């Protein structure tokens, strides 16, 4: 049994893939708690697609793809904040406009590249088995940076998410904190690009935290549970993708979804079965 589980990881590319997938699983799961609690799921998805033109331009200039993605994501995150701040259009409309425009621009740029079919599918759906050790280091450094900032800002992030008016009376820099959270989200998405791809990263941002929400009653516990579910989904998904010969990003997301469904039905606190039993 254990050898059956370990066999895939005798290959170096599988080891690197596993490390990358688990790190991304944890990172998305932690930042995702704020995405779920602040109802930013649509924004997360939009940011993920908005990095496409950045990647395409970096590719055309022979630059670093991750760097290109990062620049695009941060620009769009700040753009959405600026657009909706004035209240002339609603935030989800602002997101809808910027996100589709960026996606269209990205596809237009990529379609001008001759071999675009392969590259586009890697960006959209990830290629965790193609992770190089340089990528792995970048992922680790960015990941640790994101987690450290999240930890340092735990109290202010909690207050702006739960009660922005309290944040005002405490004189917290609310607008700065909101933008910081968006930038952290943008970084997370870029780091996740390689393992699950921009098409599926929203799932890793939403599904493990939503599952953890059903199981816990306090934010720190929700974050820890979510991180465990994210890491576990990545591990199981990667093994499944090896044996079933399916795309690893999809396998990871489907594993996370399966865990969510089980918890949704059987959670001891908020599960459907529990509710039926109570009636």
């Amino acid at each position, binding site marked *: 049994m254990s050898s059956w589980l370990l066999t895939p990881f005798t290959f170096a590319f599988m080891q690197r893939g596993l490390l990358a997938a688990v790190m991304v699983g944890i990172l998305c799961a932690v930042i995702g708690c704020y995405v779920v609690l602040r109802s930013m799921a649509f924004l997360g998805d939009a940011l993920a697609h908005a990095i496409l033109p950045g990647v395409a331009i970096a590719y055309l200039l022979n630059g670093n793809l991750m760097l290109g993605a990062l620049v695009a994501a941060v620009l769009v995150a700040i753009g959405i904040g600026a657009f909706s701040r004035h209240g002339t259009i609603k935030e989800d409309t602002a997101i809808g406009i910027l996100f589709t425009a960026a996606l269209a621009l990205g596809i237009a740029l990529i379609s001008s590249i001759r071999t675009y079919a392969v590259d586009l599918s890697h960006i959209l759906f990830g290629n965790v088995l193609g992770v190089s050790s340089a990528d792995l280091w970048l992922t680790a450094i960015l990941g640790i940076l994101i987690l450290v900032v999240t930890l340092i800002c735990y109290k202010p992030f909690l*207050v702006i998410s*739960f009660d922005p008016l309290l944040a005002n009376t405490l*004189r917290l820099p609310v607008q700065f904190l909101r933008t910081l959270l968006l930038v952290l989200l943008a970084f997370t998405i870029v780091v996740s690009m390689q393992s699950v791809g921009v098409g599926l990263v929203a799932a890793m941002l939403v599904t493990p935290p939503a599952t953890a929400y059903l199981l816990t009653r306090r934010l720190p516990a929700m974050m820890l549970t979510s991180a465990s579910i994210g890491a576990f989904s990545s591990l199981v998904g990667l093994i499944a993708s090896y044996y079933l010969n399916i795309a690893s990003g999809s396998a990871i997301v489907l594993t996370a979804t399966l865990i969510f469904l089980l918890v949704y039905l059987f959670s001891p606190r908020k599960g459907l079965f529990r509710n039926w039993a109570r009636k």
Partner: protein
Amino acid sequence: MTQNIARIEFSHLSVSYNSHLVLDDLTLQIAHGERVAVVGPNGAGKSTLFKVLVREIAPTRGRIRIHGRPLGSHKDCVAYVPQREEVDWHFPVTVEDVVMMGRFGKQRWLHKADAHDREIVQQSLQQIEIGDLAKRSISELSGGQQQRVFMARALAQEPHLLLLDEPFNGIDAPTQEAILGLLNNLRAKDVTILVSTHDLNLASDCFDQVLLINKRLIAFGTPRQVFTRAHIQQAFADRVMIVDGHAVVDDCCPPPDDPPRRKS
């Protein structure tokens, strides 16, 4: 601090949303330690007035000074208890967590809550008689308990100015009594209190001063000075009916979009 500047001053305060005037040229002074009921018809700008005081909405014209200094120059001096409908009751925090948030303003960045903070949280919970709910998730509370949690948080903030937005809407009688009792106790601590309410009887019976507004200032003074037939008619216009010389106002109920919640 000298006594003569210890007050809240509104001078020519106006607020408009999308060129729609919500508060019109409000000028008044509230002395320190005063307990004021803010009354007026729906849409009179009661909530807007509070949101200006917590700096959620910027005034279009005019200014506010607290203790003689501009709004926002005192750290953590205003505590705000929002309407219950405005809070996300499914957020994963316990009662104790919410009350502890009231202490964040007194703590330094990155510093954890110390014994003093924890003691104040416990005291605040006990003062409003919910010490036994400390570990409860906020999603499991009744309406009255929800209101008490935010009262406890406001106490933990140790504010100079306490704002309560419709705290008596759809809550049980014991909670209303507990809150009123607490407001009485706060008088000893010189806390200035502004409470918005639909209940004109309550405003008249339980508060030193009444602020009657309908976008602009109608009257400000003792209940006896404010609740005259002329003022009420001016504020509530067509929603008032005169029966045997008494003004009857058809506006004592919460608007239909926020019915009182009752949880089993």
